[in-house]
């Protein structure tokens, strides 16, 4: 188990950031979703042992969140959302210092800093002062600093915010590689659902301090029995009429149709109707929920 929380509550004055939150999350790449004010950051703070919770218990990597805060932080790497820098240092010193703060000897920390900077793709730039780095370079630097001590769990808080597409893709590739090829568990907090979908296998959705949904993304995005998404060339309305005549229930969605077929009907029905009416099918697949729909559905259920 990566972490588990039982009945965790936390309030800031009158604001209840976490409400009796109970969850058990397995090791792996975990996406943390939720709108602003959902309690994501408070949950991350709780996991890192940075705040005292009002009630409940929990464990991270088998360590109690109240009793073993420093041990947890020793085993966890954290990439904060904000621009955070140790000032007046070259990149290599920055990562080495992060390693030393985690307890590595100076020699080990510098050697390891070079390794992780190679890994995140900061080459000669590592000898430049960090204040001169671009947003993407700073993000990769923070990632290097977070993994310099080889944590078992890496927490990334909105790691792709404000990045250009190429830089974003680099960070996502690194996160995915760490989680899927290097055996490091990941907690990936983001508003960008495609990012979460690209990196994570498992997702948890928070809303107003409560757990709204959690599970494997592949399972949450369940297929819809008897529903297909289809798009044809030319007159789509005529094709829809032919589908209705065949006992289907077509509904327009974006630039195509979502079609409910009669019980027992197969995908061959579409090909037969298209052949008879002279339409070209350009897109056809069984209907599946997107992560966005899962997310919105969870929020709707709460409201």
């Amino acid at each position, binding site marked *: 188990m990566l972490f588990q929380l039982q009945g965790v509550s936390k309030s800031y004055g009158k604001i209840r950031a976490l409400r009796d939150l109970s969850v058990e999350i397995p090791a792996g790449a975990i996406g943390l979703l939720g709108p602003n004010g959902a309690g994501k950051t408070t949950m991350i703070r709780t996991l890192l042992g940075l705040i005292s919770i009002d009630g409940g218990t929990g464990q991270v990597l088998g360590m109690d969140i109240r009793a073993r805060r420093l041990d947890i932080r*020793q085993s966890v790497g954290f990439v*904060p959302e904000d621009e955070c820098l140790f000032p007046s240092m070259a990149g290599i010193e920055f990562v080495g210092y*992060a390693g030393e703060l985690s307890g590595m000897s100076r020699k080990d920390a510098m050697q*390891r800093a070079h390794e992780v900077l190679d890994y995140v793709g900061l080459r000669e730039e590592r000898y430049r002062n960090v204040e001169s780095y671009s947003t993407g370079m700073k993000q990769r630097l923070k990632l290097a600093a977070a993994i310099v001590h080889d944590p078992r769990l890496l927490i990334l808080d909105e790691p792709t915010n404000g990045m250009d597409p190429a830089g974003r893709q680099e960070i996502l590739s690194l996160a995915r590689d760490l989680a899927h090829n*290097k055996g490091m568990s990941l907690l990936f907090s983001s508003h960008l659902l495609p990012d979460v979908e690209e990196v994570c296998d498992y997702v948890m959705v928070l809303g107003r301090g409560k757990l709204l949904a959690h599970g494997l993304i592949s399972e949450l995005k369940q297929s819809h029995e008897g529903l297909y998404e289809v798009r044809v060339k030319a007159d789509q309305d005529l094709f829809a009429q032919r589908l209705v005549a065949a006992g289907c229930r077509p509904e327009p969605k974006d630039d195509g149709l979502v079609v409910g077929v009669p019980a027992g009907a197969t995908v061959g029905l579409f090909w037969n109707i298209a052949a008879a009416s002279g339409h070209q099918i350009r897109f056809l697949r069984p209907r599946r929920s997107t992560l966005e729909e899962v997310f919105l559905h969870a929020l709707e259920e709460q409201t």
Partner: protein
Amino acid sequence: MPIFDQGYQHWDGKLSSHAWRWFTISARGARSQFKSRWVRLAILGAWIPAAVLATVLIAWGLIEQKSKLILPFLSLFHDLPESIMLDPRSYRVTIWTIAYQYFFLIEMFFSMILVLLVGPSLISRDIRFNAIPLYFSRPLRRFDYFAGKLGVIGFFLAAVAVVPALIAYVLGLCFSMDLTVVRDTARLMIASVGYGLIVVVSAGMLMLAISSLSRNSRYVGAFWVGIWFVSNVVGGALQGWVKASWCPLVSYTGNLLRINHVLLDTDSAWDQIGSLMDPRNRDAILVGFRGPTYPWYWSLGVLAGLLGISLCILTTRVKSLDRLK
């Protein structure tokens, strides 16, 4: 699939104990500050009084031995009463004490300068660059952070006050060729270390507290100059106008020096010197050398109060959670 993946490799080296994490912050800070030319110059300047102190202690050791080496320089001591020169060993503690008193008086200036050069950026720059979350997301407590930052100031103050005082002591000891020096003057060595600790904790915590109040190191520096210079000027002015015994308490460095005098027991030294003077003029002459005579624990109270305020400011201003958005 490459034979050897040169990408991310796991690491299973040895980690140091939590107890020493503060030292990493201190060492890093000291290395960084030592790159400043002004800091190096200040340290160099601060070692001149140390050299003078060592010279005085060495000279006195040679005088006690009536060494030939000191003969060419005896004319420098012609102002001293004859009774001292006839029996220098009886005045050993007195001379050493007064030498240390003046050494620390001059070093106070260099200490304040070094705190001014080194201290303002310690926390203010971390706040400005939002580095606090980077510290507290690591296995560090707030105590480690504060102790680490205090260690930077401690390093430089020790370099200009405690270490030179101890080196001068050892040199004086070596040149005296007399083990009774240890018995007579051990108090001075202990007092020097104790006083150094008091200055480090008091000035260090005060500077850290001020540093946490602003993102701009220049404002912090200006604030420090205010505490140092302005409190001295106001304290001096009040002494002239009000002439009350509490007036010197207004001066920050005055309070530190009052504690210094108690630890070194300068009163006894000046009493012995005073016993050689004309009783009619003695008090008038000695009042300028002795410094303030109000109860020393008043100064200790002021310094303790400032320490308490500093701790309150630090614990309020540096909260890991507020910075972790």
